[in-house]
């Protein structure tokens, strides 16, 4: 997995509540058997008009935000389906950080598996960062995972919380499966005990 340490980039404002995974990547793009290539269809229904041309109203189609690497979004980002295609699409587009007051659990988990950082902040902080993100060409934020800080365009700094283990895995770019397989003795012991105690679970 790719490491994440520090990122400076343009933050796009999306002040919408409940941005669901169907909005992030509609189902017609879930038919792929690959992880790559979903970026062009990120937010497809909001991003393109019926004739396939870009919707100029949509934030990521505006010049200042085309190269955004951060999204500042309304509450409950990533709700709905478990599709990992949502973080894959964001990642493929170039978005590495999403900041919101809350995230749906599965989406939140999925981000970390892809070297992406979802950041939970309180409402006041979100409002401030949303203002920063609305400054167009000047909407640059710096996210530092080591110090757990977000620095705004004016130099103002806010702290954020993150689970220690997740932070460690992101900083080191660790592969979960590899880590777990180091514990295969424990898994074997567990299975042996369970086979004895709950034989009906084994078909």
């Amino acid at each position, binding site marked *: 997995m790719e490491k994440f340490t520090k990122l400076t980039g343009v933050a796009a404002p999306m*002040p*919408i*509540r*409940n941005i*669901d995974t*169907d*909005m992030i990547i*509609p*189902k*017609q793009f*879930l*038919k*792929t*058997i*690959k*992880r790559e290539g979903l970026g062009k269809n990120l937010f497809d*229904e909001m991003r393109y008009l*019926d004739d396939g041309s870009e919707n100029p109203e949509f934030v990521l189609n505006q010049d200042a935000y085309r190269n955004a690497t951060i999204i500042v979004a*309304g*509450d*409950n980002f990533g*709700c*709905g*389906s*478990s*599709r*990992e295609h949502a*973080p894959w699409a964001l990642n493929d587009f170039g978005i590495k950080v999403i900041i919101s007051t*809350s*995230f*749906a*659990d*599965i989406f939140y*988990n*999925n981000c970390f*598996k*892809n070297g992406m950082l979802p950041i939970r902040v309180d409402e006041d902080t979100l409002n401030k960062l949303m203002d920063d993100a609305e400054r167009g060409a000047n909407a640059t934020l710096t996210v530092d995972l080591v110090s757990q800080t977000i620095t705004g365009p004016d130099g103002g700094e806010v702290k954020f919380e993150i*689970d*220690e*283990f997740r932070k460690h895995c992101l900083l080191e770019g660790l592969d*979960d*499966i590899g880590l*777990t*397989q180091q*514990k*295969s003795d*424990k*898994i074997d012991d*567990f*299975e042996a005990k*369970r086979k004895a105690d*709950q*034989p*009906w*679970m*084994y*078909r």
Partner: protein
Amino acid sequence: MPKTLFDKIWDAHLVDVQDDGTCLIYIDRHMVHEVTSPQAFEGLRTAGRSVHRPQATLAVADHNVPTTDRSKGIANPESRIQVETLESNVEEFGVPYFKTDDIRQGVVHIVGPEQGFTLPGATIVCGDSHTATHGAFGSLAFGIGTSEVEHVLATQTLLQKPAKNMLVKVTGTLPDHCSAKDVVLAIIGKIGTAGGTGYVIEYAGEAIEALSMEGRMTVCNMTIEGGARAGLIAPDQKTFDYIQGRPMAPKGAAWEQAVEYWKTLHTDDGASFDEVVELDVTNLAPQITWGTSPENVLSIEDNVPNPADEPNAEKKASIERAIGYMDFEAGQAIEGVAINTVFIGSCTNGRIEDFREAAAIAKGRKVADGVRALAVPGSGLVKEQAEEEGLDKIFVEAGFEWREPGCSMCLAMNDDRLSPGDRCASTSNRNFEGRQGKGGRTHLVSPAMAVAAAIKGCLTDVRKLG
């Protein structure tokens, strides 16, 4: 110390606990479908890993399968490739699989319980958020992403932090023409779509105990719509009766031993919850969603909200957006709004009891002119059972299309979808923008309410049909 049901199941599955509290939990059952698994198998292949315990896994294709005659295969090339990819992956990795022409094929969350694959006290995962359905059996069941699917395939475990405990206590007796769907819609309306985030919800109380297993599955299914990854209902005699004799259920002495254990699976007296929500359903009216989030719930006799009444700016904007998408006037009545499509099916309401409930209303009546009505059984076995009971004839005579099993218009990945501007009364679980087809408008309702809408040609109160 007294424990909750969640705590008991969690503790029984701990393989390892790290110093920072991250747990490695064992997964007893893993369901796999074609949409969220190809990249996981590809990951295994690339890393040269195998499936740790193929027999703990069960695969079935459901999202992409056509619900018309499927003997000719799948016409859409991408859908076909996805199903074929699943078929070659299960073959390569030795995972049990029900083919698309097998009578046992259907929506994963209908197939698992039907086969006795879903058992109380088990941890069950699937790359699908509605895995919560299986919690109706007192199993800890939740949706995971594709990277986690790969992790489970490779190790039969998952890295997790324990969830917080929420109790949703449902009291009273459900009135006529209200069902499990109305109960769960009312709960989501009350807690909101993010209300359950970080929690596992245990549903209890006499109204939950009174539900059939099918009804309990409907309630647990929509738990994710309230933000919680898993819903739980303590197993009881109804649960055991439902499971006994199913193909993959324990038999003989193992059955006796299992039931003895399952009887210990309940929250102890005095166990504490982080959050308790109560709902009395005695005076519940049929529920319906008006907007584009499952929390946008109303009673059928109520009006669409007026954004002007909402003080919070972000919430106000979301109400305005939803009203615009749904093409409503602020404050208008929901009853009487014309619909042109009705969908009965999905892992929320695609079980035999749902079709019985729907057929009871459809019997001897006709679908209104200009309304397209689909009845899509959740599995081949549900279809067979319904046909044995003659339900298919009732639907066909009323003007419904009686289809082959699959996810169908729940998310419109196959050819069953809404066109822009269509309005649908649907028994599925999500009313997001474009969920049932780009520009389509969805109203989530119970099977009885969906049939009532089909007959009247508009959103209507099923109680008035008599």
